[in-house]
């Protein structure tokens, strides 16, 4: 992207304006969550955030527990930046951006304790459920992080356990036992351009970012995960301000679930 457009974005922000006419702390519309869009998944959701669209699907697998946590199952979050969704994405194994995206979503869910890993235990020390959560963007028009985090939470909320027979999964048969998800952890990415803070960045804004902070918080305002990104340095005051924005915006997003 050329420097003139970056300068223009900065200049607009000085008067609290953005290229697409939004205010700095305004989330794109529509914000839409569709549950159960993929019948082959044990749980799934499609999130539309402006023109950004992401599908997340949950599959289940049997596994052995980690030796240090014999009575806990686990989650594995994967993300693929599909070249279908953005002209700049290329085929190949997940690059660093895909890995960071998956790990931000992973920590937001894992650390919030939204899922009780003990409830994924089938036989202590021997057999547990692993939840495989995969993020697939359909159209990347910016802010994949937040859209993916919402979709992952929504997909988990409608995940049902599969039938087990003699320690084998019967994939064709879903039970009516739902996965319990508590606290509604929501990730909000706040970015800094010049002296301004904004949420839900577009592609152009993402390319102009100086620093970014993803703040995951629970319904009661407790923080559960954070990630600072990009090269810009932040003061403590700036970080606290960004956290306030994150908690406030999370409330708004939670309303769409």
């Amino acid at each position, binding site marked *: 992207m050329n420097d003139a457009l970056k300068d223009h974005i900065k200049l607009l922000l000085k008067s609290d304006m953005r290229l697409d006419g939004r205010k700095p702390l305004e989330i794109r519309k529509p914000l839409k969550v569709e549950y159960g*869009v*993929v*019948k*082959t*998944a044990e749980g*799934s959701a499609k999130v539309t955030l402006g*023109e950004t*669209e992401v*599908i997340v*699907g*949950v*599959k289940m*697998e049997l596994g052995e527990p980690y030796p240090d946590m014999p009575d806990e199952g686990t989650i594995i979050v*994967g993300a*693929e930046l*599909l*070249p*279908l*969704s*953005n*002209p700049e994405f290329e*085929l190949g*194994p*997940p690059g660093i951006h895909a890995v960071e995206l998956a790990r931000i979503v992973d920590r937001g869910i894992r650390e919030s304790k939204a899922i009780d890993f003990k409830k994924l235990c089938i036989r202590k020390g021997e057999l547990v459920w692993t939840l*495989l959560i*995969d993020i*697939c963007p*359909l*159209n*990347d*028009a910016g802010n994949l992080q937040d859209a993916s985090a919402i979709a992952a939470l929504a997909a988990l909320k409608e995940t049902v356990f599969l039938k087990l027979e003699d320690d084998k*999964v019967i*994939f*064709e048969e879903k039970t009516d036992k739902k996965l319990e998800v508590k606290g509604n952890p929501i990730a909000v990415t706040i970015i800094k351009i010049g002296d301004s803070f904004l949420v839900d960045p577009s592609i152009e804004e993402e390319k102009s970012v100086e620093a970014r902070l993803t703040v995951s918080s629970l319904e009661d305002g407790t923080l559960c995960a954070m990630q600072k990104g990009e090269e810009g340095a932040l003061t403590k005051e700036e970080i606290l301000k960004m956290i306030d924005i994150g908690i406030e915006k999370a409330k708004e997003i939670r309303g769409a679930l």
Partner: protein
Amino acid sequence: MVYKKRLNNRGFEELRKIEAKVGVIKRADGSAYFKMGETWAYAAVYGPRNLYPKFLQDPSRGILRCNYNMMPFSSSHGRVRPGGSRRAKEISLVTEKALMPVLELEEYPNSVVDIFIEFPQTEAGSRCAGICAASMALADAGLTMKDMVTAVSVGKIGDKLLVDLDYSEEAFADAPVADIPVAYLHNSGKIVLLQMDGLAKKEDLSKLLDMAKKACNELYEIQKKALKSKYTETKVIE
């Protein structure tokens, strides 16, 4: 055992429910989704665009690249490991060859046209749904095309010939099954994809190809309608 009535209650020449739409991926130059029953294909076209690294460029014509990929959660069995399998590679290849005849790649020297086909959900017939979606996405991208490509699978269970097999039929255990995915060029009537698994006589194949053409004519009408509706749905503001 004789396969008297289809497990899914369809007529022997009846297609699954089809849903199609173009312009579904805003960032792509052309895009479409195509649902055949529970099989759901998205296709996005990027290009013609510059091809790098430069040594891959062909100064006499553009290059077409197709990639077929199942999303990790798209199978009703276990998770599909990302990164592509031998099966996905082969389907990408035959898809590419099925679409190539309709394009005027000589118009785009040194360039590439990329088609990415993704499946959020599959239930048999995915390569055919993928080809139908890709053909629509190419048209939506506004590329010069000589024809539309339509694809369907036909087959034989016991002594019955049928169209658009679903998973229960592909995996039918009580009688021998032949599964034959076919793609037609609509106007010229030529065949650009033909694969076959299973046993069948030459006479059967002849009948099956006619059945496939008939089904493909139906699919073509759906494609055409979806492409037109992108423009007719536009609101006129006076």
